[in-house]
């Protein structure tokens, strides 16, 4: 899948990029929400993995903009060191599909991406049927 990462911390960004590429995904990385938003104009990815706290456009704000402009076509995973139900609820209210806490757990990430892949395939099938 094509995955866009928005993460201001250079270490977490490189870890994500390396793990995603190892999983066989096509990964583009950006250093903040504004850069990610600009990159989206080049073509929406199947998945957006965004950090919560970033300079400029924060994760929830980026997520809201993605929903407003791209609808449900992008599977959004909010990644953060913050924990607690309130944060999960806030992420979901912003339109996130899923939530991952740092440090990154490769298995948890893989499970989220499996769901994203299945949803993407289902949407593609629906579009195909509608086009007939």
């Amino acid at each position: 899948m094509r995955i866009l990462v928005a993460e201001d911390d250079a270490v977490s960004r490189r870890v994500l990029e390396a793990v995603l590429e190892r999983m066989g995904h096509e990964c583009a990385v950006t250093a903040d929400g504004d850069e990610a938003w600009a990159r989206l104009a080049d073509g929406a990815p199947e998945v957006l993995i965004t950090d919560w706290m970033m300079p400029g456009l924060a994760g929830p704000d980026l997520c809201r903009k993605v929903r407003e402009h791209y609808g449900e076509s992008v599977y959004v995973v909010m990644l953060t060191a913050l924990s607690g139900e309130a944060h999960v609820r806030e992420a979901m209210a912003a339109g996130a599909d899923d939530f991952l806490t740092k440090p990154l757990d490769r298995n948890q990430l893989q499970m989220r991406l499996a769901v994203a892949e299945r949803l993407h395939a289902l949407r593609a099938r629906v579009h195909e049927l509608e086009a007939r």
Partner: protein
Amino acid sequence: MPATRALRRRIAVTRPDVVDRAVLRTLAQAVGDDAIVDEICALFLQETGPRLQALRAAALRGDAEALHAHTLTLKGSAASVGAVLVVDAADELDALAGSGDLAGAQAWLTRLAEALDLTRAELGRTHA
């Protein structure tokens, strides 16, 4: 992919109270290339100086929100390379930031700086 000799040496020499060896092993498996683990460790060490400066500046200003934001980022990156001593010290600073009372921040910043020095020694010597 099995750990190479260089990675085995890294894991063998790191002090577990400073760097969690299991995290380095897991990272190596997840990225599948020891050179990338080296790159990530070097990146972490490179980022710690500016991060510590930002934390000190936030404490001096009495800016609990900035202190919280910087400790969260530091905890995230430190956890990625298994820098457990740094995570512990950052946790204490974060608790202070959460309470809004930064009176004890300088003491914890000193401890964090020491933790970073120890981590640099543990991770850095395996880069030679």
